[in-house]
């Protein structure tokens, strides 16, 4: 609990955390509100429920970045020295960071859903565009799980790589060029890649035929996070802090 509290304090005591979360909510709110409020009604009917996913890729990138910072700030700013002096069992520190990443992911997902549902669902309802409740729950569940796993993915990748810029660049490549990997190496293998699995988890329209099911993709992404986390813990235990 001590280490968890410390990691939580580390997260909430830097402005970047609030800037990233605030940006996510602002972008999501603007995207959801403007698209559902201004787009042609027939188009909205045709795209339903994809409209609810407006802003999801950027939100995922921002939350991934937050997770990556949670792990790599220690090395970027040299605080790993003090951290590992106070807690020589380094695996406990990484475990606490992953746990905090999980909590942040859940909080971010709930905020995302609250903003999206509050703006998009109410605007669509006011404009007479029906939204299937079951579909909306599926979309929000997928988006929520995607955000949580995106954050954990950032923490785990950061713990493994340590270098902040490298971690964020690799993460952005995975998230921004997702779909491209499957295109080049084929969907049979490509669908198991993190970016493609994330697309499937979040129920991105047009992916059902080519990518994994939401549940399978969630399991694949979760397993990827777990593998990265284990590798991150192992590397951190034996890594020299210079």
């Amino acid at each position: 609990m001590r280490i968890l509290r410390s990691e939580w304090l580390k997260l909430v005591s830097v402005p970047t955390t609030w800037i990233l979360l605030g940006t996510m909510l602002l972008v999501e709110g603007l995207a959801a509100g403007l698209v559902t409020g201004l787009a042609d009604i027939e188009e909205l009917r045709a795209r339903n429920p994809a409209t609810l996913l407006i802003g999801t890729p950027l939100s995922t990138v921002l939350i991934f970045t937050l997770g990556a910072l949670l792990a790599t700030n220690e090395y970027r700013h040299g605080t790993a020295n003090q951290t590992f002096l106070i807690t020589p069992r380094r695996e406990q520190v990484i475990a606490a960071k992953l746990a905090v990443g999980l909590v942040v992911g859940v909080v971010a997902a709930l905020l995302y859903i609250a903003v999206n549902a509050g703006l998009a669902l109410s605007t669509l309802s006011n404009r007479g565009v029906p939204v299937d409740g079951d579909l909306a729950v599926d979309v929000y569940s997928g988006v929520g799980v995607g955000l949580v796993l995106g954050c954990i993915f950032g923490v785990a990748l950061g713990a493994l790589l340590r270098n902040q810029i490298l971690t964020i660049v690799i993460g952005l490549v995975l998230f921004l060029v997702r779909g491209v990997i499957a295109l080049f190496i084929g969907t049979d293998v490509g669908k198991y890649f993190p970016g493609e699995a994330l697309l499937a988890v979040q129920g991105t329209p047009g992916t059902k035929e080519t990518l994994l099911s939401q549940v399978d993709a969630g399991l694949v992404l979760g397993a990827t996070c777990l593998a990265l986390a284990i590798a991150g813990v192992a590397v951190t235990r034996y890594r020299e802090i210079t």
Partner: protein
Amino acid sequence: MPEITVERLTKRYGETLAVDDLSFVVEAGRVTGFLGPNGSGKSTTMRALLGLIRPTNGRALVQGRPFHELSNPVRTVGASLDASDVHPGRTGRSHLRTLSAAAGLPNSRVDEVLDMTELTPARDRRVKGYSMGMRQRLALAAALLGDPKILMLDEPANGLDPQGMRWLRDILVALAAEGRAVLISSHVLSEVEQTVDSVVVIGAGRLVMQGSLQDLIAGDSRPALVRSPRRDELRDLLEQAGADVTVDGRSDRMLVHRASLEQIGTLAAEHGIPVFELTRALSTLEDRFLELTGESGNVR
């Protein structure tokens, strides 16, 4: 048992030998200066003691045990390796709270160490607005959080103004007087010579000497700095006595080699020559180190 034991410690990074068969001990109740030129292996040795890096050979022990085997590391060792090791976006207080939380210490302890390091007025300012001296104080505050028996500080005087230097000297001496072992590294002898009781001098990763400050100074051949309104007259007398004298332009200063302070003072008094200043000229540890070893202090 010594508080710190370094036993035949060797650390190699690829082809670079950072620490080479180094052995020394640090006792409680003393301020020990860990001296050596830049790149001589001081920080590497401290990191080995703190379990942050693994020795290639030998042992680095705290209270007879490797750091990771200490039952309560926070209460045993407080360390500051780099005053810049802090997130610039945090306030001084929040930085310390992240550490005290991990150590299971109450928030009141954070306020205590902020008071001790005279940072209370700046505690809610973001660290990016701190001067180097304030960061040094914050680093010391972090090291003191657990009220440890051993303090290890890497170049704690860097960036301190004269007032800060005096403050650091006083607090380190007071901490040692409470029975703590204090190990401070420096590459500038003059920075620590008024603070330390004993010294460990290394160069190129090897032990050059360990002993009291007096042992180090005993062989001091730094020139004497002399100021006198009758400089030229005193210079002639000193040269007749066998000293080498270098005059400093038209000022009243000169540098005197091959004569002790006592010899110079006595000679001036015997001839009724007033002396305004008589002291050892400041020199860096590199100078002293080169005197001791007669070779380059660079890491091989």
